[in-house]
């Protein structure tokens, strides 16, 4: 199985805080990490490789420092990595991003499965995976909690609001994964040493076949009109009593009074 995994380097949004004085994001000290769902995708790829052999190639579009994210994936056990990086790709929305990633995957050539995390924790769009599949014209299954392969057929347990679905698809296909697919393994010492030694190739706009009208800001149909901090709800009534019973009684009185219950 030839597997390509798409990963994104993201700020750890669980560490982002809002400065109450200026109402802006405090980005200082916020670490850059591999998007957690993408690490689940790398884990899924390594499990498929362990069973069926083949090769795992990890790709990312981003600034030069996104190499660190790719190195982490190499340390986990991925075979190859490619960074797609060029100022011309900047300001891209999901359509322009997926267009570039699809072009890079075409250049890599042979693939059976493309794996992505279900969404990135900074944008939370869940669009780039399906849009890559569309650009490449391959089938997709999203929200995979379990992947089994037999010959050319992939059997996926797909998470759903009401339970799950069992879906079969033949390769080539793109699959996006949820956390339940498996806890990402820790890098081994050997893997880390190998990753640190590796030279990650960087592909620019000249290295892949793209129409320059469809990349970056120019190729993005959506644009951000404004950014603001979410409105705060107003403070309510807090009961801080000596006993839990007192607090509950007061709460229920208030609720009955306000005709809430």
């Amino acid at each position, binding site marked *: 199985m030839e597997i390509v995994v798409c990963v994104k380097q993201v700020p750890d949004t669980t560490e982002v805080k809002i400065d109450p004085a200026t109402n802006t994001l405090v980005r200082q000290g916020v670490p850059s990490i591999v998007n957690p769902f993408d690490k689940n995708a790398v884990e899924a790829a390594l499990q498929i490789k362990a069973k069926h052999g083949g090769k795992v190639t990890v790709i990312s579009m981003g600034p030069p420092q996104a190499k660190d994210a790719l190195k982490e994936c190499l340390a986990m056990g991925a075979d190859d990595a490619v960074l797609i990086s060029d100022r011309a790709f900047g300001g891209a929305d999901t359509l322009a991003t997926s267009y570039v990633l699809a072009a890079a995957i075409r250049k890599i050539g042979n693939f059976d499965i493309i794996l992505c995390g279900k969404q990135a924790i900074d944008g939370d769009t869940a669009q780039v995976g399906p849009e890559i599949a569309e650009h490449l014209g391959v089938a997709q299954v999203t929200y995979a909690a379990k992947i089994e392969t037999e010959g050319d057929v992939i059997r996926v347990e797909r998470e759903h609001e009401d339970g799950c679905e069992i879906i079969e698809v033949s390769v080539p296909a793109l699959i996006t994964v949820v956390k339940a697919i498996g806890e990402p393994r820790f890098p081994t010492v050997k893997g880390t040493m190998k990753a640190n030694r590796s030279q990650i190739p960087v592909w620019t706009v000249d290295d892949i076949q793209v129409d320059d009208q469809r990349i970056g800001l120019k190729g993005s149909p959506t644009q951000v009109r404004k950014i603001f901090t979410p409105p705060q709800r107003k403070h309510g009534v807090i*009961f801080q009593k000596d006993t839990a019973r007192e607090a509950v009684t007061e709460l229920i009185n208030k609720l009955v009074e306000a005709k809430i219950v």
Partner: protein
Amino acid sequence: MAVKIMEECIGCGSCEAVCPFGAIAMQSGKALMSGICTQCGACIDACPIGAIVREQEQRFVGNDKDQYKDIWVYIEVSGGQPRKVSLELLGEGRKLADAMGQKLAGVLIGDSVEALAKEVFAAGADKVYMVEASELACYSTDGYTATITDLINKYKPSVMLLGATNDGRDLGPRVACRIGTGLTADCTGLGIDESTGLVAWTRPAFGGNIMATILCPEHRPQMGTIRPSVFKKPIPNYSLEGEIIRVNSKIKPEDIRTKLIKVIETCTASCNIEEAQIIVAGGRGMCKADNFLLIEELAGVLGGAVGASRAAVDAGWKPVMHQVGQTGKTVGPQIYFAFGISGAIQHLAGMSSSDIVIAVNKDADAPIFKMADYGIVGDAMEVLPIMIEEFRKVRED
């Protein structure tokens, strides 16, 4: 449309203070934009002398915009009924259609779904585009993408709304990409941008830390997925009627590359949190799986569903179907109880449209109290049994 700081800059620093991304720095008495600028434009409004502008540049040319009109809502069918979110979107779509002087249409796809059209009209639609075929009996990415793309190319809607469900988020990007238009994901607000008349799509980003309003100026339809439970479902008016436009399906069985083998419905009433009017949710403060029995008991007394924070799901105390938050489900019940949930912004992003929030937490400084309507500072394990007892009394009265 790059954001640029002009020569007139007086170096006052107003823009530096408002930039949500820290992309502006002061250098020799002037503001300087760095490469991490996301073109969000927050600085444009902040500049007191108008020295920051959005540069118009030739963009990838979209389709002929003027040919496109009407607001469409994709009607997702689940268990033979329209999903609640689709009806919520008809309610919201009606407002957009009225404001834009256009028609509202539902898109109904499946095998023998005609009976559902009356629900779509009752929720405010003027028209229903209906495609029926046995190949379309169940949702498939390939079948539904091709069907909707054909409808869009033929009837040219200006706006298309989909619910941000697992299927909606599977379908939306595939359709948008095939058409070559923009899609704004997971919106929590819809409006009309005053200066352009475009749909203003508002959504949380950065794990809910900030909100972004997105426009799709040159491409049609303007598309978006909208989170369930953000808008209220309209009260059905069955005296409303509309026009059904039947369109033949072009889908052949071999067009659908995925095969649905089995559907496993594991969702019970207690995990149907998107439809629930009362949700009792627990977090890390519940300490162990067994303690969720109390949460379930209270939910039972109140006739509500059970929610869980990401921490509780990660700990294995509740399955992921119960998860509320940015990467879980979005809920909007009348009453949301949060037991032992600290209130990380990612959790708040999933439940902030609840009417009433009641929080119980040991830590008086927990962020959940900042958005709770009522709060009790105390141990959830101590409060829960008393609450169960007291609510049981109230219910019996």
